[in-house]
């Protein structure tokens, strides 16, 4: 028995455990960290499948960028834990039953009966000089250019949506405009007014007193 199946089972076990913990732990920060763990293990599984590029991208993008951002958000929002937990115990038995049935049913289908090496032939093995990234790129920008472009549009929509939903112009907020400050001229700020030292009318009034 080679080392690969052993590694597979270890990573898989950690992955499943981490995924369960994501939804089971009370603290959102811990949940996020367990998600990071889950990502790492999936990346490891992909490495075992010779999908090096995807494994690295998963770690770089999801762990490196998305999850860090996510952690910031979670830490900045002061989420009250108790109300979130309220229904948990109450619904847990039903939810558990449903989840178990679902799991069993899917397991029946996605089990060794229908999948596995004796059902589906394994993909051909590639040598060490095989360039996963180049292969991916060559189809991504040719055969899959159309879906790739749509995905780009989806991201554009996401940007538009995010900005339009969060950007608020607050008229009452006061802010400085450095360009204006630099370009300001003396005439704009200071106005010299000539006036007599004493008004005629008020002088008369003073005399009356």
């Amino acid at each position, binding site marked *: 028995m080679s080392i690969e199946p052993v590694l597979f089972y270890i990573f898989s076990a950690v992955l499943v455990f981490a995924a369960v913990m994501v939804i089971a732990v009370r603290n959102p920060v811990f949940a996020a960290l367990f998600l990071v763990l889950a990502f790492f293990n999936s990346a490891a599984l992909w490495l075992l499948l010779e999908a090096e590029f995807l494994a690295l991208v998963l770690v770089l993008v999801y762990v490196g960028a998305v999850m860090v951002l996510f952690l910031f958000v979670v830490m900045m929002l002061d989420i009250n834990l108790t109300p979130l937990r309220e229904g948990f115990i109450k619904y847990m038995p039903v939810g558990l039953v449903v989840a178990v049935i679902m799991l069993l049913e*899917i397991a029946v289908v996605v089990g060794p009966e229908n999948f596995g090496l004796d059902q589906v032939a394994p993909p051909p093995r590639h040598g060490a000089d095989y360039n996963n990234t180049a292969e991916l790129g060559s189809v991504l920008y040719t055969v899959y*250019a159309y879906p790739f472009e749509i995905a780009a549009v989806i991201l*554009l*929509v*996401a940007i*538009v*949506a995010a900005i*339009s939903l969060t950007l608020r112009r607050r008229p009452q907020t006061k802010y400085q405009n450095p360009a204006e400050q630099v370009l300001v001229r003396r005439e704009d700020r200071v106005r010299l007014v000539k006036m007599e030292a004493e008004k005629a009318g008020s002088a008369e009034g003073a005399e009356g007193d």
Partner: protein
Amino acid sequence: MVFEFPNFVPALAEIFVLTMACVVLIVDLFLTERNRVITYLLSQATLLGAAVLTVSLHNNSTELTFSGGFIRDGMGDVLKVFIYLVVAVVFLYSREYLVVRKLFKGEFFVLGLFAVLGMMVMVSGHSLLTIYLGLELLSLSLYAMVAMHRDSMPASEAAMKYFILGAIASGMLLYGMSLIYGATGSLDIGVIADTLRMSPGDDMVLLLGLTFIIVALAFKLGAVPFHMWIPDVYHGAPTPVTLFIGSAPKIAAFAMVMRLLVDGLGPLHVQWQDMLVILAALSIVAGSVIAIAQRNLKRMLAYSTIAHVGFLLLGILAGTENGYAGAMFYVLVYALMTLGAFGMILMLSRAGFEADEIEDFKGLNERSPWFAFVMLILMFSMAGVPPFVGFYAKLAVLQAVIDAGLVWLAVLAVLSAVIGAFYYLRIVKYMYFDKPGDESALQSNFDMRATISANGLLILGLGIYPSGLMALCVTVLR
């Protein structure tokens, strides 16, 4: 892998819409509040241009391009033209409402155009991947549109629900697609169909994939029990967005069902027919019954949508050409009726007054006999009263169901339609026999009045001459 440089011509309309959406996005940046109407006009011009392109590219043959990810055929062309038409009318109806509520922003139109693009991708999708991406593009735009009214709690809540439930449905769709891919080894709709035709279709993996896909489709259409989002989203979203969600995306969803279930998984018809029977029966009954208990017109129309979706599924599950044509006829007619009904809500609303309670239609006849009549046409048509077109739509799908040997389902559907007639006619009763709550005359601009009148008359006209549209549906599906 041999790469063939794709032919861009069949997708010119999509390319045009994408370009214009980006143009509108940029132009809008340089507009002030006062001349924002340019954004609106540009959006309408985009839809018009796309319609011109689609019509001029139309022919009866089928073209594949982008390595099989894109298909242009008669059904797609007709559905796309209807999508442009419906969205153009949505924009038109929405304008005044948005202006009055200070929601008249470029984003509404930009997101709307991107949603149109998503629908076009779905309609023309010929691989699991493009269909899924089209759906995501549409959904993402819709989530953002629902949330657009940021100061409204119900809208934010609705957006949240829509987003999370939509994400679950997308997850299911992906899982189902991955199983289908695993079982057939291809993402291409045509290849999948060929593979399935070769091998008997009782493979459990296929069936599981099929089930997940059907659940996702049912969610998108709003079939019971995957309908829960519909009432809340319809109710919570700003009315123009509700109008948007309720009309054009149903046409795209129909196309998606046709592409996935009929074109792709057609050989599994026996299996998916049974599932659709359950979904259709539940939708028709639940939609008709629950609508009775509603006081809010948007909510009521949401449940009525659910019932209509049930009828739509009847045509599809029959699995015959006539059934598909009937379902297509139904979805087009449904979109037109929905436009009219929500259009009436938009027309009656004013600053600070939504007009979305059923009570708000009280005594409309005294305030404006003509628009009360238009509403009457719409309600009668939705209830399926001849000679309005809703009757023919129901007749066509029921015919198909009876031909498929499911007489009990047809009887159930008719009985539910009778129950459903109650709440449509209740609105008519309110309009004609009750005293108006407020006597103020309707205030709306000319294009709105003209369009909504044309909308109502179209329902009447199609009811008198249904054969043209019906023949079109039959032709493009042959």
